[in-house]
Structures are given as C-alpha cells and as structure tokens.
C-alpha cells in the first residue's frame, strides 16, 4: 500500500515536472498539425525565397530564360561585386543615410518622449498626433513631401526663401539624400512612444534620492535617465538600422535613385539590378552581401552597448 502510494506520488511529481499525463504516449506530430498553416506559410514565403536567393547568388540568371537558363558561375558574382563602383557608391550612400537618419530619429524621438512624459494639457492627444505619421501610408507621405519640397512652389522653400535659401531638394544630386533623411520624422513618433513607456519604468527612488542630493536636470538625465533608457535605445538603434538599410519605398516613389545615382542606396541598387536589368543572380548576391553587412552592423551595435545599461 505504501509502495503504491509512493509510486503514485512519484508519477504525479513526474507529470508535474514534464507536463505529460502518465500512461499517455507523447504525440508530437499533433503539434505540427496545429502549426501547419503557419508553418506552410513560413516555408512558402520565407524559407523558399531565402534558399532561392542563396542559390541564385551563385548563378547567372535573367528570369525570362526560365529554370533551364540558370547557369552556375561559382563566386563570380561576389568577385564582380567587389569590383563594381556602382555597388560601392550605393554602400557609401546607404552608410550616410543610415548614419544620419538613425541617430537623428533616436535623438528626436528621445526629446519628444521626454517632452510628452511631462504633465502637459492634452498629453494623450499629443501622443496620438505624434504617432500618427508612423501609420500613414508611405505613398501619402512621399507625395506630401514632394509637394512641400517643390523647389519653386513648395511651402518649405517659400519659408526658406525669406532667408535667401532655396535648395532644389529632390531635383539636386547634392540635396536629394539630405531631403530623404529629413523624412525620418515619420519614425520619430514611434521612437517617442517606445521611449515614453521606458521613461515610465525609470526607477523613481533614484530620482527622489537625486532630488534630495540637489542634482540638476542634466545630472539626473546623464546619471539616471540615459542609463535606464539604454536597453530601449539599443533596441531602437538595431531596428532602425535594419529598417533604414532596407529603405526603398520613398526612394522608389520620389527620386528613383536619382538625380544621377545620388540616392541609389543598396536596396534600390539591388532592385535596379534585378528588376530593371534582369540580372537576378547578381542582385541575389548583392542581397546576401547586404544581409551580411547589416548583420555585422547589428551585432557590433549590440556588443558596443552591452553591459552599460543601468538595469543590467
């Protein structure tokens, strides 16, 4: 009797530990049945294109020639990329675009987040208004900015004209990229909202202690706020770097990579190579190289900030 009770106790303990009902054989495949719709989607729309790109990167293929027209060329595409001035120009422009737009978005988002964290009248409405651009269609944003930044009739230049400044914006190879960078305002609202939630989690007792010690606003920001926001900043930096490296919609809509090749970033160059020149093998190789570059950049960002957060 005692033995039977002990056995039951062990079985119950085992069941509690493993989550399995004693005496019922595990049937893992049932789980696959439940995730099958999603799994099929992932296989069809994520894994298959991913594997296709990896394979195509080692080929010469123009799509129109069909599967029979695929010629394996080994690492030729990667050698050609290394020698391609167009690719390196696109890399340089992408780095400028990412290097300026990401810090700008983060800084403005942080400033806006701190401002919206204060007890302002109509704070909830203001938060919604600043977040709105993030959910507006990229085409609407592009067309609006195209009109605002028209060199002769646009509102922006009518204001700047009072100061003797009238850049040609998207119709100038010098101003087109800065004009695209200015359009980060769409992402600022998103950043501010993320920062806002992080600010509300900031340790109150540290602020109270700092107040007792007579710390000023800048000292509190430097010693308490910024370190507590570091994990959020890293998250935003990583996601924004990835997003900006893939930036395509506004460029395709507004400048089509021009004037000249002044806004041909790596994503647009890849599109041009694949869908305008029908060099799908080469475009796939550019895609792989870009993926590797963004991955390295992301890891470096992650690693550089590791261990510096207040909460770590």
């Amino acid at each position: 009797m005692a033995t039977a009770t002990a056995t039951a106790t062990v079985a119950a303990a085992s069941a509690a530990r493993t989550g399995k009902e004693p005496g019922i054989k595990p049937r893992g495949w049932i789980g696959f049945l439940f995730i099958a719709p999603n799994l099929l989607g992932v296989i069809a729309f994520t894994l298959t294109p991913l594997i296709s790109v990896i394979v195509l990167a080692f080929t010469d293929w123009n799509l129109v020639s069909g599967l029979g027209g695929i010629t394996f060329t080994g690492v030729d595409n990667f050698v050609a990329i290394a020698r391609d001035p167009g690719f390196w120009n696109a890399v340089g422009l992408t780095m400028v675009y990412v290097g300026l737009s990401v810090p700008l978005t983060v800084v403005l988002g942080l400033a806006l987040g701190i401002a919206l964290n204060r007890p302002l009248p109509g704070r909830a409405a203001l938060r919604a208004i600043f977040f709105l651009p993030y959910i507006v269609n990229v085409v609407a944003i592009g067309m609006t900015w195209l009109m605002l930044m028209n060199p002769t009739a646009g509102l922006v230049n009518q204001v700047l004209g009072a100061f003797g400044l009238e850049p040609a914006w998207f119709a100038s190879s010098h101003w087109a990229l800065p004009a695209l960078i200015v359009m980060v305002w769409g992402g600022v609202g998103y950043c501010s909202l993320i920062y806002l939630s992080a600010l509300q989690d900031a340790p109150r007792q540290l602020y109270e202690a700092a107040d007792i010690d007579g710390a000023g606003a800048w000292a509190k920001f430097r010693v308490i706020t910024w370190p507590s926001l570091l994990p959020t900043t890293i998250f935003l930096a990583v996601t924004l770097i990835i997003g900006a490296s893939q930036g395509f919609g506004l460029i395709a809509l507004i400048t089509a990579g021009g004037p000249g090749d002044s806004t041909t970033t790596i994503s647009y160059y890849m599109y041009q190579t694949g869908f305008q020149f029908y060099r799908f093998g080469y475009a796939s190789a550019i895609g792989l190289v870009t993926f590797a570059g963004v991955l390295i950049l992301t890891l470096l960002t992650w690693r550089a900030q590791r261990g510096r957060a207040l909460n770590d």
Partner: protein
Amino acid sequence: MRRKRFSRREVLAGIGAAAAAVAVPACTGGGARSSVLQVWGGVPAASGPAAVVEAFQKKFPQYEVNYTRFVNDARGNLKLDTALQGGLDIDVYFTYTQASMALRAGSGLAADLTDRIKQDPQLQPFLDTVEPRAYIDNGKVKALASAREPAFVLFNEKLRQRAGVELPRQWTIDDYRATARKLTRDDTIGAYTIPDVARIALGPNYWYDGDRSNFGEPHFVQGFRLGQEMIAEGSAFPWTEVLSRHLDAYQQNSFLGEEFHLWPTAPFNLRYLYDAKKYPHDFKVSFAPPPTVDGKDWNGGSYSNFVMINPNSPKSDAAWEFVKFWLTEGSAPMLRAGKLPTLGNVTDDQVITGMLGKEPGKFFDVESFRRVVLDADPKLATDTRLTAFPEISLAVKQQRDLCWLGELDPGAAIREVRRLADAAIDRDERSS
C-alpha cells in the same frame, strides 16, 4: 459510437494532398489551359483592343478571346515575364520596349513566325531588313511591329499666332532653338524639351559602334549641350521642375495648361488633346516635323508595339489568326490609342477621325496633321542591336539629368555615359 481515430500516416497524407491541391495549380499558373485565346497587351481595353477583339470574334465566331491589360512599366513587364515563365495561359502578348523584346525573344518565349509570314503576301513588309518592322533573330521572325510611331513637334496654335511665329514645314535644330526663344514669355516657356539630336543625326543602333558604345560620336555631346543651354536661357522647361513634378509622365498636363508651347512627342499623346471632358482646353494644336540635325533627317520615331506568340501556346493557329487580324483588317480601332498601323491599311479619313477625335477641326489644325503625319514618309529607326540596352538607357538618363540640372558639363556627362555603356556592353558580351 466510437470516434474514428486517424493514424499519423492518414493525417500526413491528408496534409500532403491538401498542400498538393494548393501548390500544383499555383505552379502551373492556374491549372489547365482554357479554350479561350488569351491576349496580353499594354493598351487599356477601352482604348481600342476591346473593339479589335469584338471585330475578330464577329468574323471568327469559333474563337473566343480574352484581353488582359498589363501596365507597360517595369512592374507590369515583370508581371508579364513571370506569367510567361510560370506557364500561365497566355497565347499572344505585346512587347513595347526593345530591352524586354530581346530578353523574351532570346529566351525562347517567342514563336518563330517566319514560315507563316512567307506564306502571306500582304505580310511581306515584315521580312524587310533594311527598314525592319519585325524583330528578326538569327534569320527567324520573332515579333511583328503593330504600330508606327513617328515623332513630331506640336505647337499651341493660339500662342504661336500670338507670337507671330510661322509654322515650320522643314527646319533645323538651330531653327527649333530660335523658335523656342521667340515663343518664350514671362508666363510661358518656349519648349518642353529638345528632340533627340543624336538619334536624328545617326538613326538606328546609334548607341553602338562595333563591339563598343558610340558615345564618342560628337552628336551626343551636341544634344546634351543644346538642352543645357536652352534650359539655362529659359527657352526650355527647367529640369528641376521636370524632375520634382515628375513631368516626364505628365507632359500633357503642362502643355494643356499652356506652361510651354513646343512639345516634341509621338501619336500616343494625341489622345489627351481631343478629350475635352477630361482635358479641357481652348486652343488648337498644329503639327511640325522634327527638326533636322546637320542635314540628317532620321525622324526619331520607330516601329513599335511588337506582337508575339507564345511558343508554348496549344492554340497557335488561332493565335496566328488573331495576330494577322490585328495587323491587317482589324487595326483601325487602335487609332484612337494613337497607334498608326504598320501596314498602313487604313484610309486617311479613318486616321483623322480615329486619332483626332470626332471633331478633328475643333482641337487640331488638320491640314498640318495631313502634311506631317499622313503625307510624309518619315525615316523611322528601329534598333536591332540591344546589348546591355537597359543599363545604357539608365546611364543616359542619369547623366542627362545631371547635365540638364546644370551640375555637370555636357562633355563630362557623355564621357561618363560612354564609360558605363562600354562596361555594360563588355560584361554582357562576356557573359553571353
């Protein structure tokens, strides 16, 4: 009652069957081919193709035709290419750009029509290799031009008369510039842009010289310089406006809005000028031929709108009947889309009412239209060399933009085009 338990094998077989049911039609592009003749073209059905299809079905009641429109831009052409490659049920399709045609014809997506053409006396012009109206690949006819697209220069007749400028019957590129200057006022600009100077001087295949590009030829710099100078002096539309307003795609709006007087264009843009409801305006339009360049008089236009038959079509006889009908007796409805038939098998009156609307005299100077479009025999240049065509097109456009924005000297711009074009030709010929 005991519920039936499915075995693992049964469940997996069920999933497999369901996946196959979804995947197989997707792979074959929609399953079995229908008996309906499938035709893909870039012109909206209502602008002519629907009427051609209707006339064809009336004459051949045994055939049913379905016309699908694709937008003739990069995305639309990609859609057609993937559909063709994916085995979608397409029997007849149109190709509008030389680069797409070379890819499609060179990749086995165009049936060889040589024998069918040789057997038909009225289609013999398509065998002409001096002034080609077909895409002939290694002696095999793969595509047939369904339209002539001569270039001409349109005048805003009201503004021309106000400026006291004579309507040119024959003029040089210098006359063109002088006329644009005369027409320029505070409120309007003389010309939208300039005709393609190098094309007028050099004719077909003007980008190529043997196995290199031809951009060392001085007419290319001449064209870039002329455009830059006219923009700088204000007699041609400022390129900053063209780029920032995307005017390339909406030139008609500025012409109708009287922002400029001279419009070098082609027949397909006439459709905006007789539609008073959609495009209201109160002036007539008159026609002048393209200017000559250094005594050379290639028109600058070409044969275009190539029709091709999918070699995988199981309805090739029906497809051929349809293509032949479109090129011959059925071509009149396409006039309203500005498509002059290649074989010229329409009357002058049909062309006038087809291309200039129901009241031709209301919006056009019909006499100048007759002279420039109907009675002239322009030298149309059709390119047959197409190596690295898309890359060279982009290089020309990019450097022209920089030059006409005033950021780059014409000589430096053309040198860059030449470098890019030579590199693209070299790479293409190495890989082929």
